[in-house]
């Protein structure tokens, strides 16, 4: 801090100007990212009268929890919330188990595992080609997973891109430790879970957090594959409420309460509640992801 100020004093006039301008510009950019969310939060915490008169900007006017009470007491919202929680609790461990199990054989050399190249291409091709939306829907229909919770879990159970990232990470670990384990007579599973996984903790943590965010955020499969709104995860439900204004999904109690809690404040509250889990894990995410992305995404 002191260093920075000291060197600032030594700058030429031109550079001083630039530095000040630069700080203002970047802080404005950061505020542009932040303020829309603050605005929504403020709306969700204000009375509907204050909101409709247009007084609310970045601070709640006529502070009230009314919109949040409305959301928590809304059975559809809470049902969808639990579907999402269940999805994360089942989907993420499955993702990670499959990622680890798949990355290990693929990280062997061609000499150790002769099928390696063929398998790697088998997975890699799915990153290049896809059947498209309608054939995808038909596949799920054929397998009998329409309106089934597992349709949210199984189709995305193998995150191929993550497999490749972890595979690359395994490959750059020093082979000496592994060789020592082999000499000690360790099995493949022991090598994988006692040696490689503990060494890859930061990578695995990063991938886990990304899987959590993905499961929590994905909404389209829910909308596409679930006919009964009771099976919607939260984001799919929110999509129908916030974006589509689908009246058929509203119960009569909703319509009654809506006169007290305005449409706008309740939408703001629901949006904020849906974003809350991401907000909570964000500090953990941030600690890891910069490192993880640079490691996996771009290697020279």
């Amino acid at each position: 801090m002191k260093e920075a100020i000291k060197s600032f004093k030594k700058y030429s006039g031109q550079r001083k100007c630039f530095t000040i301008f630069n700080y203002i510009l970047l802080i404005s950019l950061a505020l542009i990212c932040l303020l829309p969310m603050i605005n929504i939060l403020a709306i969700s915490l204000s009375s509907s009268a204050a909101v409709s008169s247009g007084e609310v900007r970045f601070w709640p006017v006529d502070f009230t929890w009314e919109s949040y009470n409305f959301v928590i007491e809304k059975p559809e919202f809470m049902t969808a919330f639990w579907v999402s929680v269940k999805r994360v609790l089942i989907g993420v461990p499955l993702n990670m188990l499959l990622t680890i199990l798949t990355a290990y054989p693929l990280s062997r050399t061609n000499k150790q595992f002769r099928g390696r190249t063929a398998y790697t291409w088998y997975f890699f091709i799915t990153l290049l080609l896809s059947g498209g939306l309608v054939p995808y829907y038909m596949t799920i229909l054929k397998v009998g997973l329409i309106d089934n919770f597992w349709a949210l879990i199984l189709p995305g159970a193998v995150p191929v891109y993550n497999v490749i990232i972890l595979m690359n990470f395994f490959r750059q670990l020093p082979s000496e430790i592994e060789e020592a384990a082999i000499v000690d007579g360790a099995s493949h599973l022991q090598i994988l879970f006692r040696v490689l996984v503990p060494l890859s903790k930061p990578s695995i943590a990063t991938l886990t957090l990304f899987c959590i965010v993905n499961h929590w955020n994905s909404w389209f499969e829910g909308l596409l594959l679930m006919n009964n709104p009771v099976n919607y995860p939260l984001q799919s439900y929110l999509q129908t409420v916030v974006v589509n204004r689908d009246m058929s999904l509203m119960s009569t109690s909703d319509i009654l309460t809506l006169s007290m809690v305005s449409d706008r404040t309740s939408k703001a509250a629901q949006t904020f509640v849906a974003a809350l889990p991401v907000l909570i894990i964000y500090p953990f995410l941030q600690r890891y992801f910069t490192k993880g992305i640079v490691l996996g995404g771009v290697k020279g």
Partner: protein
Amino acid sequence: MKKKGSIGRHQKQLPYHIMLLPAVILVGIFSYGPMIGILMAFEKFTPKKGILGSEWIGLENFRYLKNIPDINGVIFNTFFIAAMKLVLGVAVPMLVAILLNEVHLSKVKKAIQTLIYFPHFLSWVILSGIFIDILSPSTGIVNEFIKWLGFEPVFFLGDPKWFPYTMALTETWKEFGFGTIVYLAAIVGIDPSLYEAAEVDGAGRWRQTIEITLPTLLPMGMLMLVLNLGGVLNLSFEQIYNLYSPQVYSTGDILDTLVYRIGIENAQWGVASAVGVFKSLISTIFVSLSYWLAAKFGNYRLF
């Protein structure tokens, strides 16, 4: 002797195959299964008769597609919006990374980074909830600001003239911060002695940026451009589906949203698959080309 050796090797190989089996099956069903479904594009498909039982009609669906009056517009929109996002998606993060590198108060820098990375992690459903509210011409805070500046309010999401630019801008808003990460990492990798030498030669900070920082970032920018090229046609569905409305179809409808409407909402399975095949074809060419270019010029290998 030889036989025994091959059995020994076989035993060592087997666990690998077993470990891969669950993933192979799941990917087989859910990724390769739909690829077989591409046949639907050449059929008068009904779910009842299935992919193998439906009537084979050759290129009929593609002919039908060609006669959809708006199809050229949709193709144009798809590429136009994708191109804007592609350019902004490389230029803005690179510029911001360079500027961020000039922020020497580490706490301020950290705070800025925390705030600009965050929107990347929000879904388009949540962001739509936010954007529909703040961009509203009557009550939204953005238009309140525009009115305060003395201009007419802008109907960002409802005016066909504005819609594509709104898409490019909101996408940039969501992703520019996260995009800076790779460039910041590249800047950290620059040898500080290069700057010191330039300093001795009397080069100011501006010259140093142009002659040292920028040349380091440009190859990275090219690599990002190439890698993004591959996914660019798949990028917009979640955003546009949540933000568009019939009055902006003329400039906002893209191939993916068209597929969804014909296929899922109108149940014209065959026609929708035909659009899907058309798009997948272009997309596959783009993705393959991008990986090839990245490997050739960027020295980038995914595996």
